């Protein structure tokens, strides 16, 4: 088995193993697992950067035309490295952050499974495989967001995340299936190779929109952006890992993955560009309304995701380079900042940005990590964030007619990011210290290692842009564009328009930062934002669905026995009559009064008995009339050559009437049929419908030719094979002897049950 397939099995196995070791050990096991997987993927860097694409067979289902298979190109490798690298730090962090918490081990196992599913999703070269792993990440997210399951808010957030991303997943599945039908293969590289056929398919556009919908839901694009801040109900390691660095980027990954297929389609570019821009702007605006630092970060993550989607939408090559670079940068600083906020929350007992400040003296190491990450976020040199921001402006400048809007909005968005970065570093750690619920101090090294390492990586990547460009960015860009391109990353571009924009951004950002305390309450008062959000729409939809389901259930499961019976018979009758009507009529058998033989009198007796039963005032009379029907039927059997049946019917009917009459001694015999006349009419209508259906079906059956083979066979073999002259008896005790034995058993069991019921009833034991 090839290495990249084995890596998934190792990930799954390792996650399962974590369930069987103590929680402290499990954190180390998880960190080790993620780190070794990271090393494994890193070993592919050299080969992949020179153009090699390792592939492996994995879970193909030929019978269903599912190709299966894994593929590790530059894009997949970049994601795999982020997933495992940040994963290792998060495992380490979580073990310390939730030390002593009973839910730690479960959380770690879920994190491990999530990591494996993510690796599967990004390395899958098969649409169905990708979808399965995609949904697994949604499921893992549900459990991880709901870690604190005693809290109703956490449960609600978990359900919301699941419903939004799961609903997107359904759209994605539909889209992928449509594309697979058009391409004739489920292999993603096959789909891209068959791009002309896919785009020429009549359903090409709906398929593309469905894929985009799936990606947007997962990556929290407008209008699905509301679930991500709510998902912050999860413990911080989960937020850092799933809801900033990895899972929410899966939608971006999907768009990048399918970009070679759809590049050139105008709608693809327009939709991604504008939706991405709208998302980025929404996130930036909402980030300035919050003081809960985790929610601030969540909104900036929405901004980051929007920026990535927008960059994929901008057509020229440079934007792909910008997207990959920004992806890398964002993963570094956002994960680091989340972990820092988690540390602050953990050590001070608060994460309210308005109430905290001056923590730098008490927690210097944390302050350094936060500062490094925040500078990268603000896009200051020499951090890699600066490189990314320069590229971002360059890409926007080259975006053609839309570039003016992109630049202006982008300028404002970036400035607000600078302000948020300032809040998260300068405001939080410098200045006068304020009282906190707990005395702050630097955390255990396992918790600080992650943010420090990530922040340093941001600095290192900024100082060695060429290496990053060759090893990581260029292969990923090649995968996004589907063709080789030259990628150069530079820290210093010289004095030009872009640099001026950068400087102006920082300037405006500083102004916003200084006014932060006044901006937040001001924006908070703008309640219209809450009233008309898609979050409201989601609430209404959910409540409406539940009340609709309740109403439907109430309608169908009303708890009235006669209603069920009436529905049963009416539906069956209508189905039977409807089928007969649709399938065509039949010839009613010829009938003449002259041909009627005297046996028809038995039929008349049956009809009279039925009428007497139905019209009987008391139950006792109904039972007697029922007996009349039974005896008439018995007579009918006798007249049609079935004496055995006739005798049995006679005996049983007698017994039944006697037993029923006896039971009526203790049952209320005088009860009248007290249905209201209208009810009686309705019941009679259902009854007549059922009777008509049976008669019609019988006549249809009788109109078909009769196949006498079975009866003839039994007749011919009765004496020679079984030495019996009464064919009916021979069938019962010989040919179908086992059936008869079963019948005897049923009767015996019924007899036992009757005796048991009677005995308990007689001794007065009510229960």
């Amino acid at each position, binding site marked *: 088995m090839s290495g990249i397939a084995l890596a998934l099995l190792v990930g799954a196995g390792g996650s399962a193993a974590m369930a069987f070791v103590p929680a402290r050990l499990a954190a180390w096991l998880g960190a080790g697992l993620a780190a070794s997987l990271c090393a494994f993927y890193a070993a592919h860097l050299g080969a992949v950067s020179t153009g090699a694409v390792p592939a492996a067979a994995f879970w193909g289902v030929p019978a269903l035309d599912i190709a299966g298979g894994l593929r590790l190109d530059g894009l997949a490798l970049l994601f795999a490295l982020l997933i495992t690298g940040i994963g290792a730090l998060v495992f380490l962090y979580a073990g310390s952050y939730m030390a002593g918490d009973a839910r730690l081990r479960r959380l770690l196992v879920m994190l491990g499974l999530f990591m494996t599913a993510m690796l599967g999703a990004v390395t899958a070269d098969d649409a169905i495989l990708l979808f399965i792993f995609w949904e697994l990440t949604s499921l893992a997210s549900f459990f991880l967001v709901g870690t604190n399951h005693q809290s109703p808010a956490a449960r609600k957030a978990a359900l919301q995340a699941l419903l939004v991303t799961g609903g997107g997943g359904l759209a994605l599945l539909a889209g992928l299936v449509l594309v697979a039908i058009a391409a004739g293969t489920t292999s993603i590289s096959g789909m891209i190779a068959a791009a002309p056929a896919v785009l020429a398919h009549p359903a090409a556009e709906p398929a593309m929109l469905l894929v985009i919908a799936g990606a947007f839901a997962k990556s929290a694009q407008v209008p699905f952006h509301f679930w991500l801040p709510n998902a912050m109900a999860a413990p911080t390691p989960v937020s850092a890992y799933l809801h900033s660095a990895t899972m929410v980027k899966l939608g971006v990954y999907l768009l990048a993955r399918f970009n070679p297929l759809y590049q050139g389609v105008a709608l693809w570019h327009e939709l991604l560009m504008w939706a991405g821009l709208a998302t980025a702007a929404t996130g930036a605006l909402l980030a300035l309304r919050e003081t809960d630092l985790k929610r601030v970060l969540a909104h900036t993550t929405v901004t980051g995701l929007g920026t990535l989607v927008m960059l994929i939408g901008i057509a020229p090559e440079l934007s792909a380079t910008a997207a990959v670079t920004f992806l890398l940068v964002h993963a570094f600083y956002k994960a680091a900042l989340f972990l820092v906020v988690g540390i602050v929350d953990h050590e001070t007992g608060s994460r309210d940005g308005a109430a905290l400040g001056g923590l730098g003296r008490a927690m210097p190491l944390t302050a350094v990590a936060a500062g490094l990450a925040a500078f990268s976020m603000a896009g200051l040199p020499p951090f890699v964030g600066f490189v990314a921001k320069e590229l971002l402006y360059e890409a926007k400048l080259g975006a053609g007619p839309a570039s003016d809007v992109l630049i202006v909005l982008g300028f404002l968005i970036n400035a607000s990011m600078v302000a948020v970065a300032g809040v998260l570093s300068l405001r939080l750690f410098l200045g006068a210290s304020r009282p906190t619920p707990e005395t702050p101090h630097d955390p255990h090294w396992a918790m600080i290692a992650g943010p420090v390492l990530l922040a340093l990586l941001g600095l290192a990547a900024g100082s060695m842009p060429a290496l990053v460009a060759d090893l990581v960015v260029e292969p990923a860009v090649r995968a996004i564009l589907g063709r080789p391109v030259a990628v150069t990353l530079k820290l210093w571009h010289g004095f030009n328009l872009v640099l001026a924009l950068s400087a102006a951004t920082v300037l405006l950002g500083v102004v916003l930062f200084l006014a932060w305390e006044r901006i937040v309450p001001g924006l908070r008062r703008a309640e219209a934002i809450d009233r008309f959000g898609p979050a409201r729409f989601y609430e209404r939809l959910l409540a409406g669905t539940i009340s609709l389901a309740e109403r439907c259930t109430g309608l169908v499961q009303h708890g009235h026995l006669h209603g069920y019976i009436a529905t049963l018979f009416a539906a069956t009758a209508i189905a039977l009559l409807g089928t007969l009507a649709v399938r065509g009529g039949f010839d009613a058998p010829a009938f003449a009064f002259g041909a009627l033989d005297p046996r028809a009198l038995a039929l008349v007796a049956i009809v009279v008995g039925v009428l007497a039963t139905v019209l009987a005032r008391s139950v006792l009379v109904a039972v007697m009339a029922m007996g009349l029907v039974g005896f008439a039927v018995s007579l009918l059997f006798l007249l049609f050559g079935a004496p055995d049946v006739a005798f049995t019917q006679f005996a049983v009917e007698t017994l039944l009437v006697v037993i029923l009459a006896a039971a009526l001694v203790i049952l209320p015999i005088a009860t009248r049929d007290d249905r209201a006349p209208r009810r009686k009419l309705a019941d009679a209508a*259902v009854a007549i419908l059922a009777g008509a259906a049976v008669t019609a079906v019988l006549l249809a059956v009788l109109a078909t030719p009769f196949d006498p083979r079975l009866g003839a066979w039994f007749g011919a073999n009765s004496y020679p094979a079984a030495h019996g002259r009464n064919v009916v008896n021979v069938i*019962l005790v010989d040919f179908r002897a086992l059936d008869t034995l079963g019948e005897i058993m049923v009767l015996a069991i019924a007899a036992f049950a009757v005796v048991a019921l*009677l005995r308990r009833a007689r001794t007065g034991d009510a229960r």
Partner: protein
Amino acid sequence: MELPFALAIGVLVAGAVYMLLARDLPRMLVGFVLLGTAANLLILLAGRVGGMTPPLVAAGMAAPGADAANPLPQALILTAIVIGFGLAAFALMLIVKARAVLGTVRPDEMAAAEPRAGAVSSPPTPPRALPPPRREAA
């Protein structure tokens, strides 16, 4: 003969369903028995009916005569009659038991399994409908 036969079965089914739709269990049991009878007749008629000769192999013959009735439906009906009887007896005992425990034979008044909102939480005390035991069962 087939048309009046089929019509009579239809009437039987209609009567059975009408009784099944009654709101008390003894009437529903009557409808249940009638429905079983209707099913038996349906089997007989679907196997075709003709003369009065039963399917017997006369001495010296290897098979019943050509005009003999179809033996297969008869065998099926025999089984069905007996099973139907067992089922009816069992159902009757359930009704007796329900009357003893819940004090009613009307399904709409039986609220023990799914108490309705506003209904009393405990089932009504059973009336002393049964005669006191003459001798204690072992």
